[in-house]
């Protein structure tokens, strides 16, 4: 599972404001900037936290996708 990037500081990105603990949408920043922010402690990787942007890719517009678990599909999704 790809790690989720979480803000450790309040950050403004364009017209969006991100607060402590919020997720950085995948693919918004170039990889080099992400690395710099990770090094400077502005961002942190959380591999155990799922990215909501990837889980709901059709609604978030994210290009990366993450599958829901079988249990979640059985419990919440529309059966065939």
């Amino acid at each position, binding site marked *: 599972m790809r790690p989720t990037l979480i803000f450790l500081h309040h950050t403004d990105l364009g017209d969006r404001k991100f607060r402590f603990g919020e997720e950085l949408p995948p693919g918004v920043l170039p990889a080099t900037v992400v690395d710099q922010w990770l090094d400077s402690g502005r961002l942190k990787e959380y591999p155990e936290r799922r990215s909501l942007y990837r889980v709901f890719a*059709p609604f978030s517009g994210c290009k990366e996708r993450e599958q829901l678990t079988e249990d979640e599909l059985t419990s919440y999704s529309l059966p065939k």
Partner: protein
Amino acid sequence: MPKIEKTNQLTPMYEEQKITEHEHSPFLRPPIHFDPPARREQDAAAHKAAVAAASSEAAEREMAYLRGLSGPARVPRAEPPPLRGPALPEDFAEQAGAIDEAIYDRGVAIHRDQLLSLGRARFAELLEKDRSVRSLQRVLFNDLTSWPDVAASFASVSALSAHLPPRKMKEQMSGAGEGREKANKIEDWQDLWKAAQQEPEPVRNVYAFHDAFASLVFGQSLLLQSDGKVRSHLFCSGKGAKVGYFNEWLPSLSGPHFRIVIGQPLFSVLAWLCKEPTPLTPPVDLAADWFGKRAPSPSQIKVAEAILEGWLVGLSSWNLWNVVGRASRQRIDHDWMQGWCRELAARYPAISRFHDGISSYFWTQVGSLDGYTKFDENDYRHYLDREIEKLLSVVSLLAARSVEGSCVARFSDWLLCQGKPKDSLAEKVQEQLEAAFTGSTFRVTMEVVP
């Protein structure tokens, strides 16, 4: 040579005693039998039969002894009598199959762009809810979509329990308090309301996030399955939380639709089944009465509704407490709830008698003591749920049959129909239901889906 006198004297010791030996050959000897072989076989068979009979008798004695140790023979439990059935045509089973098949084939028309736009708006709301959960740092969360992670977060602040009084030694010895011990556990999202006593705001926030997440998963599955029409067996008498999620996505339907709502079908069916003459008291009035308010809040009305529904399906004590808590996400006092149930029993005596009568068939003899019986809660629930479900399914099928081909989804208390509604449709459905359930009262309304 001196003459020896013959007297009574004994033979002198020096004289050697003469022992006369005779062969043992008595004059009367035992007769020698010469049995024919057939007779010998007969004797052997008789001997074998006697041994087998003795062995069988010993085994029976042993079994009787063991039975005696285990107590008296158990009396098998009597089955409850068959319940009253609605007046249905003979070929109703075939009709029901055809109705469901037609509903499945018709499918629900979804407007893909509307669904996408609604999904985007709801995804933004989900992010906002995620933010509000994390902003209050009384409980620190990691992955909010995973129950084990959320449970661990609540456990870290000792909030993963309902904090009900533990079972006393006396209760454990007598087998009492088992329901309370079970009710104390938090095992799933559904049980998280029990932690609200310790951490009310985090529980509220987590529930808001989880509901939005589950609804969005449903919406995404609608989008992925949609090619203009969505077909699913959920639309043929589906039940549970998914029906609620589907209801939330109705604004994304394509074309005009309307809903036919059957008000409190559970009460109508049970009142008909038990011949209960008292009409239904609306949950608003029950809530006003129980909470002592002129205008009870929506949460109080929800509690009243949940207690009424739970009581109608025969739940009681901690089982009812659990179900009411899950439905209303509120923790209510167990003793108050018991008092309200007694009020309901007094208000609807025929339904109360029905439950008492049915439950009396589910006492099973246990153990070696004569007359010691235990209530089989699982069997009772299984039986009652099955029978009530059957009747509610008939209600839904009859309503679907009445709307003549416009029904695209049917659930236990509402139908989704496509097209524009006809004015007399609700009355027609009501007439059909009251004809099948003779003497019953159903309240059917119609509303346009926005």
